[in-house]
């Protein structure tokens, strides 16, 4: 075991980890941040997506020890001060983009990077951006609708 410091959603967490623990394991099992989901655990489905220094990554493929000192954002860190919903979260609710919900947090963390870099993305850009996130319910149409809705609300 060794102790590292992780900067998550603006707060520093001192956490003891094994050398081979992934960021996903530490978030869920040691810090109880269970909004980040474990899916395939091999970089193929996207439901573990979080942002590191503003870039969306698969937390199941990142060693926690390597994430020390970087700014990590999880779904719990979206929205203002953890109380009001992020425009993407609100749009997912309104567009009915959540079926079983398992992919939702990863989808939102991914779309959040897209909207931060691309104002009013086209449908093609949205679909290309979320290519690394699988919805097992195959509810892509409403997910794309939700991202469009959030984009129109945040572009102005």
């Amino acid at each position, binding site marked *: 075991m060794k102790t590292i410091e992780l900067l998550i959603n603006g707060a520093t967490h001192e956490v003891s980890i094994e050398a*081979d623990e992934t960021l996903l394991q530490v978030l869920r099992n040691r810090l109880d941040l269970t909004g980040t989901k474990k899916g395939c655990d091999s*970089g193929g489905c996207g439901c573990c997506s979080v942002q590191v220094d503003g870039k969306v990554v698969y937390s*199941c493929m990142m*060693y926690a020890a390597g994430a020390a000192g970087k700014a990590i954002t999880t779904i719990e860190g979206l929205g203002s001060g953890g109380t009001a919903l992020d425009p993407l979260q609100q749009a997912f609710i309104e567009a009915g983009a959540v079926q079983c919900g398992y992919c939702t947090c990863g989808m939102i963390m991914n779309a959040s990077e897209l909207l931060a870099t691309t104002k009013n993305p086209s449908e093609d850009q949205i679909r290309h951006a979320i290519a*690394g996130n699988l919805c097992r319910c195959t509810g892509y149409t409403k997910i794309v609708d939700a991202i469009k809705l959030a984009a129109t609300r945040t572009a102005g």
Partner: protein
Amino acid sequence: MALNLEDYFLPASLQEASTLLQRYGDGAMVVAGGTFVHGLEVRGLLTETVALVDISRLGLRGISESGNGGVSLQALTTLAEVGAAPLISRNPAFGSIGDALQYPPRQILNVGTVGGCVAAAAPLYDLPAAFLALDGQVQASLAARQRAIPLNDFFVGLFESALQRGEIITAIELPAPAARSASAFLKLETNANDLSILNVAVRLTLDKDGKCADSRVILGGGVGETYVRATSAEAALRGQTAGEASFAAAAAAVVDDFEAVEDHRASAAYRRHIAQVYVRRTLGTALARLG
């Protein structure tokens, strides 16, 4: 899952990283973006690894022009950064690089590195095929020694490269493309987050009469333990007018250049067929880029 892992190191210098790699020998593995290492781990292939050496804090990040129109990509530059670099995207000679970066999802583009995808020495990876078509070379460092290794000599076997123990890739260098050069890349995959079934990267250099002065045809994916340079296809292009007829001849010749893998993802016959189709298409794309 790497049950025997003892430590995760974050060395502060190349020297320190090389020393760790030498100390642990076969028990050490370099981590850059980490996606390849994780891929090995989940397949149970890292059971002998006791030390991970994370080189992501060493700088080595950025893209610059190397004097005469060539480009130097530092080893820890992410795939996303390569895709966003005007030096790459504005030059049709480097078109194959932009093509290869269309396939991985954002989550991989944001962490995967130039040096990592080459060091992996897995012909299933896309970007190295594009680098091979551009006659790229590896810059590698061991203690005070820095040496250049042409990519053509770099890939020795599956997961096996010309790197010596302790040696670390510091950059990939692409020489200045000849005038009237363009390149293109295509990948056959089953879904948006897949390793390649077959990859083709080509580079075309035309003379003033529109004839093929030089070309590279590179195959990746299920073509064996390393990338394949399709010399028969290149020979079929040499001196010929670039166009449908010579591209069809190159496509027909490419089946002589490799032993297609037969597995559950595609039959050897299908891979041979796709190789021909993709050679024709990538050459067409490269020619179109020369406008």
